[in-house]
C-alpha cells in the first residue's frame, strides 16, 4: 500500500529527465491539536520549476506550503510528522535554525503585506537581518536588483523613500516579492499571491513568476486553475488532506488519472 502511494505520487521519470530534487516531502502529516489536516504527503519539488498546488478550500494545500518553511511553528497547537528535506537538510531537524531556513525558503502571502515603512526599507529589511550587506551602496544595489527582478523598479525608482503601503495592491504584492527576492532565497513559496488583485495586476505577477523560475524554485498555491495551467510546470492536486495526484501540468489538466482530479478541474466540485 505504502509502495503504491509512492509510485503514484512521486514522478519516476524525473530523475531520467535530469531534474534535480530541491525539496522533498515523505509521509508528511500535520495535526492541529487532535485534528489531522494532512494525511501523509509524498512529493518532490524540482529545482527551477514552478509547482502549483490546487484543490478545494480546506484541502490542506496552504498548510503543506507553510510546512515547507516552518511557518506553522507560529501556531501553538500545530504538530508536524514525516520527513521534509531541503537539499540534504532535514527541515524539521530540531538543531536547524529556522531563521536560516526562512532565509533560504522565502514566502509571499495571500494579502500584500508591506511593512509600514518606506519602499527602500521594505526591501532591505531581510538583507539587514541576515547581514547580507553593510554599506549603503551595497544596500542600494540590492534594492535596485530586487525591484528590477520584481518588475517594479521603473514604477517606483523615483519614490523609494515613500511608504510601501501607499502603492496599489498589485504594486504592493510585487514589492513583497521583491522583498522576498532581496534575501536571495533558493525557494519562494507563494500562498495565493493574486487572490487580492485585479486581472491586470494578476497578469503582471504571473509573468513575473515565469521569469523568476530561471533563478528560483517556486511553489504556488492557487485557486485559479487557469493560473496553475499558465504558470506551473507541475501541478499537485490536494483533496481533504490527501495529495491525490501530482504530475506535469499538461497531463493533470488534459489527462487526469484520478476521477477526483477530473471532477475538480472540470468544475464539478470545489
Amino acid at each position, binding site marked *: 500500500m505504502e509502495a503504491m502511494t509512492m509510485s503514484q505520487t512521486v514522478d519516476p521519470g524525473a530523475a531520467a529527465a535530469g531534474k534535480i530534487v530541491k525539496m522533498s516531502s515523505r509521509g508528511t502529516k500535520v495535526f492541529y491539536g487532535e485534528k489531522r489536516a494532512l494525511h501523509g504527503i509524498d512529493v518532490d519539488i524540482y529545482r527551477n520549476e514552478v509547482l502549483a498546488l490546487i484543490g478545494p478550500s480546506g484541502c490542506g494545500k496552504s498548510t503543506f506550503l507553510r510546512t515547507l*518553511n516552518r*511557518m506553522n511553528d*507560529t501556531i*501553538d497547537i500545530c504538530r508536524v510528522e514525516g520527513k521534509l528535506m531541503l537539499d540534504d537538510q532535514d527541515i524539521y531537524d530540531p538543531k536547524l535554525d*529556522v*531563521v*536560516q*531556513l*526562512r*532565509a533560504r525558503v*522565502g*514566502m*509571499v*502571502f495571500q*494579502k500584500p*503585506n*508591506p*511593512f*509600514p*515603512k518606506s519602499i527602500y526599507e521594505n526591501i532591505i*529589511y*531581510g538583507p539587514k*537581518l*541576515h547581514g547580507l550587506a553593510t554599506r549603503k551602496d551595497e544596500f542600494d544595489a540590492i534594492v535596485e536588483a530586487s525591484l528590477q527582478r520584481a518588475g517594479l523598479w521603473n514604477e517606483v525608482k523615483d519614490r523609494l523613500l515613500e511608504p510601501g503601503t501607499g502603492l496599489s495592491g498589485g504594486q504592493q504584492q510585487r514589492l*513583497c516579492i521583491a*522583498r*522576498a527576492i532581496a*534575501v536571495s532565497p533558493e525557494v519562494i513559496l507563494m500562498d495565493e499571491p493574486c487572490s487580492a488583485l485585479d486581472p491586470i495586476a494578476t497578469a503582471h505577477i504571473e509573468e513575473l513568476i515565469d521569469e523568476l523560475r530561471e533563478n528560483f524554485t517556486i511553489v504556488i498555491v492557487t485557486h485559479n486553475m487557469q493560473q496553475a495551467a499558465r504558470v506551473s510546470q507541475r501541478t499537485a492536486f490536494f483533496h481533504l488532506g490527501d495529495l491525490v495526484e501530482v504530475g506535469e501540468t499538461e497531463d493533470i489538466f488534459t489527462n487526469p488519472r484520478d476521477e477526483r482530479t477530473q471532477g475538480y478541474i472540470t468544475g464539478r466540485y470545489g
Partner: protein
Amino acid sequence: MPIQLTVAVLLILSAIGYWIGRQRAMSVSGGRVASLHSVPNYYGSFVAVWAGIPALLLVLFFLMLKGPVIEMLVLGAMSPDAVLSWAKASISPNDFQALSTAGIAGADALAETQRNLMMINIRNLATGQERFVNPAVVDALLPAAQHMQHLEATSRWSLFAICMAIAAGALFITHRKITPQFRARNNVERVVTWGLIVCSVIAILTTVGIVLSLLFESMRFFARVSPVEFLFGLQWSPQTAIRADQVGASGAFGAIPLFTGTLLIATVAMAVALPLGLLSAIYLSEYAPRRVRDTVKPVLEILAGIPTVVYGFFAILTVAPFVRDMGVALGLPVSSNSALAAGIVMGIMIVPFVSSLSDDVINAVPQSLRDGSYGLGATRSETIRQVILPAALPGIVGAFLLAVSRAIGETMIVVMAAGMAANLTFNPLDAVTTVTVQIAALLTGDQEFESAKTLSAFALGFVLFFATLALNVVALRVVQKYREKYD
C-alpha cells in the same frame, strides 16, 4: 399636598397610560395586531411618555423656582416695622443705628447677609422649628412666617392640580390619536433620542460647570495675587496672616516648585511604568502561551483595582524606608519622604494602565505583518523591534500620554509618601510636593474661604486641569490617527 405624592400619582398615571394605550391599540386593530403600524407596546409607551414626562418636567421646574420666588414674595410683603424690630434684636447696634436713621422702606434696606439671616429665621418659624429662633424676634416675624406657610401650601396644591390637568389632557389626546396608521414607534423613538441627548448634554454641562467654577474662583485668586507671580514665582508658602500681628505669615504664591515637584514625580512614575508596562504587554501579546496570558492579564489588571490609599501605605511602609536605606548604604542623603519612593509606587499603580492599552494596540497590528517578517527569517524580537513596535507606536504614545495625565492628577500616594515641603529641586531623593497634594492640603480642615491661601487651590486646580486636558486631547488625537490606519 407633598411634592412626592404628586410625583407618585404622575408615575401611576403614566403606568395606567401605558396599559390604556396598549388596550386602545389592540381594540383599533380589530384583533389583527399585524395591521397596526407599530407593535402594541409602542402605543402603550407613547401614551405613558406623554402622560408622564411633561408633567414631571413641570415638577422639576417648579422645584427649581419655588424657593426664590416664595422668598421674594414673603420679603416684599413684609412691613418696615417688622423688619426694623427684627433688626433691633439681631444686628449690631452700629448697623441698626445706620439702618434706622436712613429710614427703612422694607426688607430691601437690609444688607444681603442680614436679609439671608432674617430669611432663615422666617423659614424656621414657618416649618415649626421655633427653638432655633431668638424669642425676641418671633412676634415680629410671625406674620411673614404665616404668609410663607400659606404660599407653600397654595403652590403645592396648584402644582398638583396643574400636573393632573396636563397628564389627563395628554392621556386624552394621545388616546384619541391612536389609529392603526399612527406611527407610535417613530414617535417613541424620537422621545428616546431626545432623552439620550439630554443625558449627554447634562454630562457636558457638568464639565462646563466645573471649568467655570474653577475659572471664577481662580479669577478671585488672581485678583489678590498676580498671575505672573503665581506662574513664575519660585517660592510657595501659602500661609497668610489671620491677625495682623502674626509672625511668619507672609504668603508667597509662586507655583513653580509645585509644578517641578509634580513633573519630577510624574517622570519617576513614567520611568517605572513605561518599561514595565510596555515590556509586559509585549510579553503577554507576543511571547506568552495562551494559558499564561489568560491568567497573567487579569492578575495584572487587579493592580488597577487597588485603592490608591493602599498604594500610599505601600509607599510609606515599604518603598520609602527601602529607598532611604539604599541611599544610606550608598552614602547619599535621602529624605524620608522622597520623590523617588512616591514616583516608584505611582509608577507601579500605572503599570496596568500602560500594559493593557499597549497590549490592545500591539494586538491590533495585523498578523500579516508578523507573518511577512517571520517569512523573511526574522526572529521574534527582531519582528517586535522592527515591525510591530513601529506600527504600534502611535497607539503606544497615546497610552503613554494618558498614563502621564493619570500620574499628574494622582493625589493620595503623593499625599502619603512625598511630603509637603515645596522644595524647588530636580533631585528625586529630596522631598517635594505636588499640585494635587497642595490642593488637598489647602482645602482640608476649617478654612477661611475669602483668603488667598484657600483660593490658590482653585488656581492650582485650574492649571492642573488644563495640563491634563491638553495631554488627553493630544493622546486622543494620536490614538485616533492610529485607528484610521488599521481598521
